[in-house]
């Protein structure tokens, strides 16, 4: 299959029950792809955010696509709490593995390196650690009486993000959003939506190459102009604040959220 595909074809590896990692809200969230996943009706995702998320996680949770969530925070930022996340947790419907930002980075870095775990400072004495039976405290074997937390490597099935551009060989320019490269290195497979296709190879120019994720890690690319909307694509376009405010207002209730989905997610069916 070619590496450049239609959005629907590109998203095919995101199957029900898979572990999907998405980036934080300000670094290139694949929102057009997220709406397509909701239209397709994906279920039981084990969603991981690197390390936080806003609208993307809230939409997937509200639309019933998520069975479990690992995150260090879900919030709409200046637009308030993430209403569907908050509601799902309060009703006991969503299982959350609460983490802290550097733990998510470190657990994915373990997978990048192909090692079974990564040690991390902090955490000891917190209830974050107390609720993570999968995390472990050991005594630092290189010192005396120095407890330290071990985080098992986190290996998502799929990484999904939106980036400014890609070339026909599947190389993706991520610029300084280096956590997108971490996600891709750690995940079994990576799907990227992009604003545009780059003529020639992104690896030819050393300035571009330094910010490029090699196609080696990438399974599929789909064109999606303004594909992060209504969230920002850094250095390209800002958050659509008016839209996010409207989302916060509508999604405050289950009925309002359904209206939002009808208006901004499902209506593309007819188009």
């Amino acid at each position, binding site marked *: 299959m070619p590496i450049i595909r239609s959005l629907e074809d590109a998203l095919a590896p995101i199957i029900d029950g898979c572990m999907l990692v998405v980036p934080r809200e300000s670094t290139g969230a694949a929102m057009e792809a997220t709406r397509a996943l909701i239209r397709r009706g994906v279920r039981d995702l084990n969603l991981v955010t690197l390390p936080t998320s806003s609208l993307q996680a809230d939409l997937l949770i509200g639309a019933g696509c998520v069975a479990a969530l690992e995150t260090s925070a879900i919030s709409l*930022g200046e637009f308030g709490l993430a209403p569907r996340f908050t509601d799902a947790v309060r009703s006991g419907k969503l299982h959350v593995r609460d983490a802290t930002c550097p733990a998510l980075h470190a657990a994915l870095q373990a997978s990048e390196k192909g090692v079974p775990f990564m040690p991390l400072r902090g955490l000891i004495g917190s209830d974050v650690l107390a609720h993570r039976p999968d995390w472990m405290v050991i005594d630092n074997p290189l010192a005396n009486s120095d407890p330290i937390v071990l985080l098992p490597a986190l290996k998502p099935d799929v990484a999904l993000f939106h980036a400014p551009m890609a070339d026909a060989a599947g190389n993706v320019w991520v610029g300084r959003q280096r*956590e997108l490269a971490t996600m891709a290195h750690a995940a079994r497979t990576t799907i990227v939506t992009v604003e545009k296709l780059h003529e020639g190879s992104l690896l030819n120019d050393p300035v571009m190459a330094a910010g490029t994720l090699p196609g080696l890690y990438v399974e599929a690319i789909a064109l999606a102009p303004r594909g992060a909307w209504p969230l920002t694509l850094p250095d390209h376009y800002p958050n659509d604040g008016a839209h996010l405010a409207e989302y916060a207002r509508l999604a405050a209730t289950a009925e309002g959220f359904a209206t939002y989905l009808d208006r901004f997610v499902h209506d593309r069916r007819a188009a």
Partner: protein
Amino acid sequence: MTDAPLDFSTEEMLADVIAGLIGDLRHVAVGAASPIPATAALLARARGGGRPYVSLLQSRKHNFFTDGGRELFDCAGQGRVDAFFLSGGQIDGQGNVNLVTIGDYEKPTVRFPGSFGSAYLYYVVPRVILFRTEHSRRTLVPRVDFISAPGVSDDNVFRTGGPVALITNRCHFAFDRAAKRFHLQSVHPGHTLEEVRDNTGFDFDVPTQVPETPAPSGETLRLMRETVAPELAEIYPEFAKRVFEPV
């Protein structure tokens, strides 16, 4: 001889107090949704002629990291972040902060966004300034329901950082790490010790004479309004307009 009293806002006074706590450091980082700490960090930099380095994590212009989201945490883990700010849905008298849940963790009555980087940064950033503008028994509690990050740790736990102060809309508490308690440092103008006691859910130490939080100087106000406010407007336009632009 007395100078005429200066006209200043609460936000300006709080930023001045925090800038004093930052003092002469190399690197101050400020997280998202923290306009007053960001004002304070930029004020400290304006006073220091370009030092400390200030990382405003949600700004494009004031965020110099180039190695992805992990760089801040790696930097902090090495001791290269000297001061940071944390808030909490609840904060207790031992400096524990809660950013997760109220009530049963599995089925809470309140769910906050989550712990962010607190469960790590609180341990490794030497000067963490707690900041909560709602000073009430709802926020300042005897014991938090969920410890996102503890104020103090056992002696054998690696800990180079922790809380130094808690700044609220009513007062300034210093944190005494040895006693594991807050100590009332000053009460802001227009507020009283009784009011602070009535609105605080935990015990704290009180000096014999409770000082009033000093007002910002004319020079400080000038720096904030002329130098800091335009920089702040990039990230917090509404805040900058409301606080610094004359009505």
